[in-house]
């Protein structure tokens, strides 16, 4: 029988399972160990996205292209909204790219925990992988549509300035924003399914609160840095600066980065807290 036996004390447990604590920090080492799984989930989402569609990855282009068309007609044409001296189609498309990266990532990461509940209730892995893979998979769409932007820039004779080297940082900032918000919403969505219905609505409102169809320069200079409280404002203006050479929005970006850091850190703690009760409430 297996009681009353000598236990070798040199043996160190590989794992201790204990009742949940209120606030748990993220175990980045463990997250790193599971990087292959993160890639597997991301690859799965990319593969199944356009399965059984006739147009396949063309959809990644069609959506922003049509939005750009509509914006150009309505906001550029009828409403005569200024565009910092840049042709309106280019002006709006350069904003739509990071915007769609953000909104797709936000939608997918918010849904990720509930949509994958059949897996999460059957096997352990760091749950953070789910929302992270949610923000990573839209990168493929982003890569496809950025080729369109390059073609458009060539058409309008725009040569990017040296600032283009900062572009990856703004992509990162867009991803971090969608993860920060996605962590909160995915965790809240586990408990309150209301959040999955609010996401399309949030995204729509947020888009008009971001300088997608209008430039940030429409706001008075004095309060423009406050606009950075919306991190996507920093991202979009940063994109335009890096690619199209508009005015540098440095104060806005600084505020945006701070907001994103707060969102990410708080989101991670909240997510980790929810994660422990996940299987009992999902």
């Amino acid at each position, binding site marked *: 029988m297996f*009681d009353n*036996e000598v236990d070798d004390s040199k043996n160190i447990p590989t*794992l201790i*399972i*204990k*009742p949940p604590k209120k606030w748990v920090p993220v175990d980045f080492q463990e997250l790193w160990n599971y990087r292959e799984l993160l890639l*597997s989930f991301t690859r799965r989402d990319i593969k199944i996205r356009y399965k059984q569609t006739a147009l396949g990855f063309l959809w990644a282009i069609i959506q922003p292209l049509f939005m750009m068309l509509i914006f150009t007609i309505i906001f550029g044409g009828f409403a005569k909204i200024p565009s910092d001296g840049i042709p309106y189609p280019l002006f709006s498309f350069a904003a739509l790219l990071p915007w769609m990266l953000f909104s797709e990532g936000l939608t997918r990461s918010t849904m990720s925990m509930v949509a994958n509940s*059949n897996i999460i209730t059957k096997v352990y892995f760091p749950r953070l992988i789910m929302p992270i893979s949610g923000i990573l998979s839209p990168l493929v769409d982003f890569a496809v549509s950025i080729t369109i932007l390059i073609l458009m820039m060539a058409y309008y004779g725009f040569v990017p300035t040296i600032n283009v080297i900062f572009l990856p940082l703004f992509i990162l900032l867009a991803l971090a924003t969608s993860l920060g918000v996605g962590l909160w919403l995915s965790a809240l969505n586990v408990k309150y399914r209301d959040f999955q219905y609010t996401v399309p609505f949030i995204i729509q409102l947020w888009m008009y609160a971001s300088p997608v169809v209008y430039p940030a320069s429409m706001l008075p200079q004095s309060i423009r840095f406050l606009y950075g409280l919306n991190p996507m404002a920093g991202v979009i203006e940063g994109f335009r600066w890096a690619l199209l050479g508009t005015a540098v929005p440095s104060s806005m970006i600084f505020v945006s980065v701070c907001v994103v850091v707060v969102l990410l850190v708080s989101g991670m703690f909240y997510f980790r807290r929810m994660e422990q009760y996940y299987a009992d409430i999902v």
Partner: protein
Amino acid sequence: MTQKIAIRVNNLSKKYRLGRSEEKYHTFRDVIVNLLKAPLNVFQSAPPEEGFWALKEVSFNVHKGDVVGIIGRNGAGKSTLLKILSRITTPTEGEVAIYGRVGSLLEVGTGFHPELTGRENIFLSGSILGMRKREIEEKFDEIVKFAEIEKFIDTPVKRYSSGMYVRLAFAVAAHMDTEILLVDEVLAVGDAAFQKKCMGKMGDVAQEGRTVLFVSHNMGAISALCNTSILISDGKLRFKGSPSDAIDLYLQSTGQENEKQIMFNDDPRKEICILSVQVGPVGSNRKETIELDDDVELTIKYNVKRDLQGTNIYVGFDHKGVNIFNFWDIDYDKNLFLMRNRGLYTLKVLVPNNFLNLGQWTISVDAGRPGIGTIDKQHHCLHFLIENYSKDMTNSGLSGGSVIAPISVQTISE
């Protein structure tokens, strides 16, 4: 001899919350409404909630190389224990120390996606189960061969037959090589030949000296595979020791239950009404289980409310959704067909032992009048299990394949 410990479970308890607040999904509206109703409640700590202890102060140790069978009735806490050990849910109290890599197999086909091909699913499911990409690559051919799906490896699994799907799913899981393996009743998949293969694979795993925790209702599998066993009931550890002792205790503890029975209301509109159907082993009033070696008795009570000409009672036996055999009571007594006086009747059916094979059987009963039609119909009204715990049938074709088992075989060496 000192043995190394693989799992140490110390005073483990798990409480599930019950009551209104957890019964339905939380909606944000509820929170807001509650907030408006009683704004001050937010600042008070929540009242202690009614709870249900799925596990209560469970402690045990598992040594390296042990194959532990966990038995208990449905709802006893077996799955909760496995869920805590595999870190899907957290305990409320207590602690578990685990020494070694854990792989858990709580379901066959975790993470399979219908749109992906067999190949893609092997890699996806493998990595979800905690295997490294390199590890999966090494075992890839073996997995495909085990699942017998070589030709369809690049076909989306949504086009697979259910048998192929399950075989592939099990094959991936069976090739996990963690030091500790947690398995929840997943062997009951696929056809007979594949089940046999799965049991064989489990046997191999047990031989390799890996630590296995194995939840099952299949007592035959427990006694064949496990070298030690744990009995859980009502969230508490009742017994740990040899599988045969644990199984005996388990069967005794479930013995107070009556034979399986179902009652129906007497419908005044019907001239014949089935009142009850009952099934059980002959000659034992203690056991709930019916074993292969038991004669099975079926008792059907019905009410005939007026004198009727031409009546029959139909009884059908289904196994795995297929009607295996059926008969009418008038097959055995032609007089009943001519005239049936009003009154209460009991129909007793005796099925000899070693006839119905292992697994779930379903009874259908109806009462009717030839030429007129069915009057009272209770189809698929009663399910019962034919079980086996006394025989080692791990490598037997009987353990899942054929429908009936009316065989007596002797090998005589001359």
